[in-house]
């Protein structure tokens, strides 16, 4: 009898995922593999991250696998999809679980299309039991609802785990994993999409920030966004924004926090003049502490906030800037 392989796939490189997220996916993968009596494998595409072996051990990974190929370095999808399709054809895993990043949103469904599998992204949990289909809970309507999907179709099932959905938990006393290099033949892959101008992060990223101060439509004019920037600076953090400010052209889209913007997890998130729509909270709900400043005491943001001020952010932000500098 062959063992049921549960594969967690992450990749390093250009837009590589955060290691903590890889660990969260491993924790969920372990839950599934325990339920199915399977074997947890961690497939790292690209260079093995520093500390990878220790993470693998404390997550109870049985086999740590690695695919490296020069064609995977470009960060475009054709080589990834081909490499993973070859891997799946050879190993026939039951589940391929990704920790969700920008590129996963393309690679996971393309792989599913290639293999005839079912695919679910934005997953927050998986329930597994022998002889029954996997049940994947995912976020929908920007977070207003959760949906549960059953996965039929060819194996492997393909699931992409939303950032911040699962807390990594380690196991004690696991054996150190065996290590395997996976060979793939990518000689026939010609990347069909050519990068003419690579993306350049200018300065630190919101995803990595410990403190974020975001402004919303309550700022009422583009000039007032400077208050958000000044408070962010006074607190040693970064400025963010809700989507309407991006749509209105007040701020660059790299500032947008939310479902279709940045998924952040700061220690402190200050939301000034933001109503707290689910699509915005999808990008900041994992903050350790949210401070909300809003004129409307019934604004949804106060349901998520740890600290709240009911008041005019245009009057309070300047005072906060002053107080923060003290």
């Amino acid at each position, binding site marked *: 009898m062959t063992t049921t392989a549960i594969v967690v796939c992450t990749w390093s490189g250009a837009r590589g995922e955060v290691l903590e997220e890889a660990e969260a996916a491993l924790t969920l993968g372990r839950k599934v593999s325990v339920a199915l009596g399977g074997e947890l494998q961690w497939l790292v595409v690209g260079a093995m991250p520093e500390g990878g072996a220790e993470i693998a051990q404390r997550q109870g990974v049985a086999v740590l696998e690695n695919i490296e190929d020069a064609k995977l370095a470009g960060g475009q999808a054709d080589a990834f999809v081909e490499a993973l399709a070859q891997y799946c054809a050879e190993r026939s895993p039951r589940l391929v679980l990704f920790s969700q990043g920008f590129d996963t949103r393309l690679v996971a469904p393309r792989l599913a299309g290639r293999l005839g599998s*079912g695919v679910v992204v934005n997953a927050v949990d998986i329930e597994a039991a022998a002889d029954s289909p996997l049940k994947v809970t995912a976020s929908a309507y920007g977070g207003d609802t959760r949906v*549960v999907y059953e996965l039929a179709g060819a194996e492997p099932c393909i699931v992409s785990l939303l950032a911040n959905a699962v807390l990594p938990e380690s196991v004690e006393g696991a054996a150190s994993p065996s290590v395997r290099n996976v060979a793939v033949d990518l000689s026939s892959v010609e990347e069909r999409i050519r990068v003419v101008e690579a993306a350049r992060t200018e300065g630190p990223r919101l995803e990595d920030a410990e403190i974020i101060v975001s402004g919303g439509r309550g700022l009422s004019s583009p000039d007032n966004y400077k208050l958000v920037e000044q408070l962010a600076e006074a607190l040693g953090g970064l400025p963010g924004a809700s989507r309407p400010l991006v749509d209105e052209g007040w701020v660059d889209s790299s500032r947008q926090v939310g479902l279709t913007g940045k998924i952040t997890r700061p220690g402190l998130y200050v939301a000034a003049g933001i109503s707290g729509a689910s699509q915005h909270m999808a990008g900041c709900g994992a903050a350790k502490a949210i401070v909300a400043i809003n004129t409307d005491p019934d604004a949804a943001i106060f349901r998520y906030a740890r600290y709240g001020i009911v008041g005019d952010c245009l009057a309070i932000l300047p005072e906060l800037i002053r107080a923060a500098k003290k």
Partner: protein
Amino acid sequence: MRIVVCVKEVLDPDAVNNYALAGRLEIGDDGKTLTQTTIPQLMNGFDEQAIEAALLLRDAGAECTICVVSVGADPANQLRHASALGADEVVGISSPVAEPDAHVVASLLVAHIRSLGGADLVLCGRQASDDDQGVVPALIGEALGMPVVTVASSVELADTSALRVTRVTPDGDEIVEAAMPAVVTISNEIGDPRYPTAANKLKARRVKPTLVGPDDLSLDADALAPRVLLTQQFVPTVQGNCEFISGDTPAELADRLVARLREDKVLP
């Protein structure tokens, strides 16, 4: 060139938001369908922006036929809207599967595109605001062997046979080129979609969308076998435990908040 734009009808996400926030979002007896009839149906916002992307290509001088396609029960309203915006052909595809998943929807769209003799460019919204999945474009690309460029803020013709696309990535804008045919998904950064003129709206009222059924398309059993079955939907609970800071003046509020944050070690 032929541009096919794929659009989906969704429940108005703002209305869903408001009901959810008020704790009044209703889920039907089947345990999975949002049932409030007061929530309007409209075209998914990113899909409307995908139509806008096609119109911008035409404005820039591309000679193109714009064909807007929707899989759904009653697509007439949104297809009329598409027509008023400037679509040359509007097509509604009815699904033989009661609850089509992304695979079935993609299969129907692919079969239709094949029946047209192919497309040079397939435009879709980056994701639908109901299930937020955004997997249909990737499935279309795989099935048709086309490259898939996601999350575009602008689409231009690089020359007669290639596209130049700006993608909004977490690390900033990335500019890529791909030969056509290709699939491109559109993000909100492309800008607000235009409004149809009153005259075009009037004209569109008389437009009859072409209706296509599974019998008109060549599809095998696997193409119509869903892989992903929705079994349940629920509203997650948000536990609010907000501590409201009180004070008489903005200065007092600010001082008290900062003091509290320092006390709780949220700030150093």
